[in-house]
């Protein structure tokens, strides 16, 4: 694994497992990588490869993990995360239909988030957040069921950005969306990253999407990183591990 100077996030020998004792399932077996500030790092793999579990371990949503995980050189431990961590690191989930509370309006979602992040002037900030993700204020008082999939994902992104984080963890943010909407969301994410100098960790099963979004890509299989590539290398097909080739083949057809 290539060394990164001044890593924003560094993960070393991360292991994640579910259930203890006899039913123990190793979801991630010894994963290490580093992400520089402002970089976009991709994790690609098929279902069960543990790519989403890595994100969940970072955010403290995974039950058991070991290894070291540092954000700005500060080590994370256990499942508890500090307020500062949540201010710095935020996550966007895969399914925009499941990641918004069905009984809360967009307004409620954002104002609660802003309140939790300790941000004053909630009124003004809600309007700002909505316009940042390309939604007009007419969407402000709608319930999730009154929004399309793309609009919901925009709201989810606005929520993640409310506390002005530095690192954004993206767990398959477009796989539940139509391709035309996917293009819009990917463009939005790229714009936001440029404007706010965000660091991305982008998880996806789609090689083309990851290559489009990321500078460096790690290919995962069965809880391990099999290969780490530059996006340009992948685009030119310069890969060495047979599994990556298999994935590439499947994507191209």
């Amino acid at each position, binding site marked *: 694994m290539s060394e990164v100077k001044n890593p924003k996030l560094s993960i070393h020998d991360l292991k994640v497992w579910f259930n203890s004792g006899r039913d123990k399932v190793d979801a991630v077996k010894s994963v290490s990588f580093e992400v520089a500030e402002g970089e976009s790092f991709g994790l690609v793999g098929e279902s069960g490869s543990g790519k989403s579990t890595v994100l969940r371990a970072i955010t403290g949503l995974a039950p058991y993990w070991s290894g070291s995980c540092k954000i700005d050189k500060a080590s994370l431990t256990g499942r508890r995360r500090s307020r500062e961590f949540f201010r710095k690191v935020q996550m966007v989930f895969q399914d925009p239909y499941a990641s918004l509370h069905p009984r809360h309006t967009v307004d409620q979602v954002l104002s609660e988030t802003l309140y939790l992040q300790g941000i004053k002037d909630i009124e003004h900030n809600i309007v700002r957040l909505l316009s940042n993700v390309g939604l007009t204020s007419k969407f402000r008082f709608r319930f999730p069921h009154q929004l399309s999939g793309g609009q919901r994902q925009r709201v989810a992104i606005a929520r993640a950005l409310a506390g002005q984080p530095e690192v954004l963890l993206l767990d398959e943010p477009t796989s539940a969306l139509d*391709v035309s909407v996917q293009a819009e969301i990917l463009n939005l994410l790229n714009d936001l990253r440029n404007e706010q100098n965000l660091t991305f960790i982008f998880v996806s099963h789609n090689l083309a999407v990851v290559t*489009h979004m990321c500078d460096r890509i790690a290919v995962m299989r069965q809880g391990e990183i099999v290969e780490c590539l530059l996006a340009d290398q992948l*685009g030119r097909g310069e890969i060495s591990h047979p599994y990556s080739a298999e994935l590439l083949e499947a994507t191209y057809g």
Partner: protein
Amino acid sequence: MLCIDNLWVKFPTSQGLFEAVRGISFSLSHERLGIVGESGSGKSLTGRAILRLIRHPAIVKANYITFHEQNVLDLKEKEMRKIRGRRISMVMQDPKFSLNPVMTIGSQIIEAYRQHNQASYKVAFRNALEMLEAVLIHDPERVMRCYPHEVSGGMGQRIMIAMMLIPNPEVLIADEPTSALDVSVQRQVMKILDNLVTERGMGLILISHDLNLVSEFCDRILIMYAGRIVEVCDAAKLRQASHPYTQGLLNSLPRLSERVPRLTVLQRDINWTEAASVRG
């Protein structure tokens, strides 16, 4: 073989009737026809309407849906059951919801086989084994003893395909058969499906949102937008499609070979919704 003329599907809502499919016409011979569209374009409803699987309160209307010169819409439910599953089969998106969770896979296949053929248990068992081998399952005897939750998604979908093919249908409607599967398994399942369809000379209607997949496994493609067919083209010539919607869809896909800073975003035109449906 199958002709559909001016098919409408409408749903009553609190704001009046919602027209999900708006007057589409197409025909299918012994070929592989792809129906592509985004969510809400009415592509799945079209497939269901052919098999008369759309329930009240939705309204299905068409001048005719003929299958071998017989209007499906005039048939009684009892006669319809003879066609559904026997002569026109359907593979759904998620195998988990199509298999009975409390029966072993073997007994489900055998039961399905005996429903359609007069056969002893032994013959049915042997045929079930052959079926599973036909969909490239390597150890069919073990799989037959499994319950649906014990097999992977790709395996489940192959089993579904095997079951759908038992009565040797003339038309197979596959509604997003691979979208719940991993990419590497997707192609594999599609190839199996494709081989079986071509070997037996069946007609295939492949409903999907995935342009690449459809262009690879179909002869002809209908592109649906807002309940209408906006374009019909040869699968091989998809890249040269003329309609701006088709072009927009193609362009909005990120490509591995050329990295662009921004993806082209599809600009929707209100006129597309109003333009008359193309006959396919």
